[in-house]
C-alpha cells in the first residue's frame, strides 16, 4: 500500500511546506483533454512538461562466460530439498512483513488525517484551513476559495475512495488466498498438446468463472445493457436478441426486464450528460423514473449511475437491484 497523502509540491515559488495541493499548475493536455493541433511545419521549439530525461545509464559490463556444465549421471537424493530453505525464508518473510506493516500503519494514519481535513473543510472556518493545505492566490477572493475548496474536497474524497477500493480488493484476495489448497504436480502440462484455439476457449471459460461473465441485460426498445468485467458498462442498440445466448453462464444470468414496460431510466436520451448527476454517486437501486443518466462514460469513476468499483459481476450471475426484483414478483 502506498502513502495516501500526496507529495508536497516541490514548487520553489511556494514556501508553505504544508501545502498538499496546487490546482493552478495542471497539465491541460492530460487533465482536460485539450486538443493538440497538428501542423506541417518543423520546429525546434520543443514543448517540455516532464523535461527530457538524458540521465546517463549506469555502466554495466556484460560479464558473461559460457561454461560447459558437467552434471553427475546418477543422483539418488536431491541435496536441495525445499525444506532446506524453510526456516530462513520463514524468518525473512516475517521480518519483511513487519516492515510492510509499519508502512501500512503510516498510511492508515495519513488517511485519518485526510478524513479530518475533510471534516474541517466542511466546517465554518474552512477558509483558514484551506489556505494551509491548498495553494490559494488571493484569500479574499471568495470565488477562488469556493472553487479550490471543491477541488480539494474532490481530491481528498478520491483518495479515500481509492483506499476503500483497495481495502475491498484486499479482503477478496485474502479470502481466496486462505482457501487455496496447494497441490504440486509432476506431470507435463496437457495444454502444450492442445490446439491453440482450444486452449483459448479454455482460458475464456476460466476467466468467466473467475471474474464472472459478460452480462447482457435486455432493456427493451431494442436496447441492451452490457456489463463486462473488463470493460466500461455500455448500452448498445440492436443486441437485445442475443441476450439469451447459451454461453452466458453456468446459470441463467440474464433476467429480462418486463417486456411490456421497459424501465424509463434509459429512454432515448442516453447520451445526454447531466452534470449534477455525475458529481455524486447514485446507486442503481435509487434511480428514479425521471432521471437521465449519462452512459457515455467520460473518464471518471462514476459509471452507469454507480461507482464502477461497486459494479462487480459474479460467477453465479448478475443480480438486479432489489426493488426491481421485488417489482417483478
Amino acid at each position, binding site marked *: 500500500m502506498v502513502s495516501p497523502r500526496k507529495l508536497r509540491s516541490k514548487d520553489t515559488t511556494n514556501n508553505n511546506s504544508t501545502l498538499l495541493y496546487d490546482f493552478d499548475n495542471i497539465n491541460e493536455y492530460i487533465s482536460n483533454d485539450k486538443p493538440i493541433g497538428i501542423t506541417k511545419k518543423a520546429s525546434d521549439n520543443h514543448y517540455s512538461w516532464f523535461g527530457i530525461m538524458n540521465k546517463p545509464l*549506469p555502466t554495466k559490463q556484460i560479464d558473461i562466460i559460457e561454461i560447459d556444465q558437467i552434471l553427475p549421471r546418477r543422483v539418488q537424493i536431491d541435496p536441495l530439498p525445499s525444506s532446506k530453505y524453510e526456516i530462513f525464508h520463514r524468518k525473512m518473510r516475517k521480518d519483511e512483513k513487519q516492515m510492510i506493516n509499519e508502512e501500512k500503519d503510516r498510511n492508515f494514519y495519513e488517511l485519518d488525517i485526510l478524513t479530518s481535513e475533510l471534516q474541517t473543510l466542511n466546517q465554518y472556518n474552512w477558509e483558514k484551513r484551506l489556505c494551509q493545505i491548498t495553494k490559494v492566490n488571493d484569500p479574499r477572493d471568495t470565488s477562488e476559495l469556493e472553487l479550490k475548496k471543491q477541488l480539494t474536497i474532490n481530491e481528498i474524497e478520491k483518495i479515500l475512495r481509492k483506499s476503500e477500493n483497495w481495502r475491498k480488493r484486499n479482503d477478496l484476495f485474502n479470502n481466496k488466498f486462505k482457501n487455496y489448497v496447494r497441490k*504440486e504436480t509432476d506431470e507435463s502440462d496437457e495444454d502444450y498438446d492442445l490446439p491453440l484455439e482450444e486452449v483459448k476457449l479454455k482460458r475464456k471459460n476460466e476467466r468467466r468463472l473467475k471474474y464472472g461473465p459478460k452480462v447482457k441485460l435486455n432493456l427493451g426498445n431494442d436496447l441492451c445493457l452490457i456489463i463486462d468485467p*473488463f470493460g466500461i458498462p455500455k448500452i448498445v442498440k440492436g443486441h437485445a436478441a442475443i441476450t439469451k445466448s447459451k454461453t452466458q453462464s453456468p446459470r441463467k444470468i440474464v433476467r429480462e426486464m418486463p417486456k411490456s414496460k421497459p424501465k424509463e431510466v434509459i429512454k432515448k436520451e442516453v447520451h445526454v450528460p447531466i452534470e449534477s448527476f455525475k458529481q455524486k454517486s447514485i446507486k442503481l437501486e435509487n434511480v428514479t423514473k425521471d432521471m437521465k443518466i449519462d452512459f457515455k462514460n467520460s473518464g471518471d469513476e462514476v459509471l452507469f449511475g454507480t461507482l464502477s468499483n461497486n459494479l462487480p459481476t459474479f460467477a453465479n450471475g448478475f443480480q438486479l437491484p432489489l426493488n426491481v426484483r421485488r417489482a417483478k414478483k
Partner: protein
Amino acid sequence: MSLIETQTNNEEQNGNSNSNGKALVSSTKELKIKEPSFYGVLNKPNIEFVYFGNYKISPWYGNAAYFYPQDLSHNLLGYEYANKVALDPLARKRNKETDNQEINTNVIWLENLFVCPFCFKYTANQHEGNQHQVLCKCNKYRPNIGKLVYYDSTSNYIIREIRGFQHPLYCQNLCLFGKLFLDDKSIYYNIDHFNFYVIYGMESDKYIPMGFFSKEMLSYDVENNLACICIFPPFQRKKLGTLLIEFSYELAKFTPGQYRSSGPEFPLSPFGQISYLSYWSKKIANVIYKMKNKKSITVAEVMKYTGFRKEDVLLTLENMKILVQEDLDSSVLLSIKNFENWCQLNNLDPSIEVKYLNEECILI
C-alpha cells in the same frame, strides 16, 4: 521496478483521473527521481560470480537478502546459517556473549553462488547445485509450473503465469536471483500478492527461463500492470524485454480496472525507462500516422488506441520531440515534419504497426 515501496510519490498518477492537483502533475515529474536505500540493496555487488546453467555471470547489484541479517560474518548463506542455529541454538548465543563474531567488512561476501537454471534454488556448493539440477522437478523439456499463457512453438517462446501464493519458494528464489540485476527491488519473500510471468526460450534442446516480470495483483494503484521486469544478462538483446512489455499490456486487457489504460509502476530504472520509451514511441508512431490528416489530436485519443496512461503518452510525445510550442504561452502543436524526421532517425515505417508478440499464441 521494486514491488512495493517505490510509490511514495506517485500514488495518484492515474491516467484516467480527472483530478486537477498539481501534486498529481508534479509527482509524475518526480517519478524519475529514485528513493535510495531499501533493504537488500547494497552499494556494490556482494557476490562475485553467479552460475546459472551454462553461464558464469558477474552480478550487477548486491543482494543482502540471500544472507541472514544478524550474521555479520556473512560466511554462510542465510539458509545455512538458519539451519545451523536451529540445530545448535546455543551457537548464536555463544557468538553474542563472547562478542567474537567476526564482522566481514569485505565488499564480497560470497565468491560463487550456484543458482538452478530451472527452479532458482541456490547454494554455495557447486557439487550440490549440480546434483540438484539432475533431480530438479522443474528440469523438463517444457516447463509445467504455473499456467501456460503464451506458446509460440515456431519462435520457441513460452510464457507461464506463476502465482506467488501458489508457488512461494519458486517465486522467492526468482526474486532473489532477479535482484542481482535490478537495483531497486525490495520485496523478496512476501510475494503472495504477486503474479510472475516467466519467459522461457529454447537452449540446448530445452526451454529455460530467460527473464520475467511481476505484477502486483493488489496494487494500490489499479492501473499498475507491471511491478518489475528483468531479462537475465545472457539472454539480453533478444528483444525479450519488449516482448514482455507488450505482453503486460495484453494482460491488462483482461485485468479488471486496467481495460482503459495502464502502465508500469514508477519509478522506472534507467534501463526500464529506455525500454519503455522505445516501446511506447514505436506504438504511438503508428497511431499518429493514422491520425496525421486530422486537425488535432488529444492525449486521451492516443490513450484509447494504445491503452497507455495519459502521462506515458505525453512523456513519449515529448521525448520524441514532435510537440512544439512557439512560446511558453502559446498552444502546443504536433509537428508532422518533426514526426517524419523522428521516424527517419529511428528507421521506422510508421504505417506498419510493430508487433513483438505472435497474436495467435496469446493464451491469456
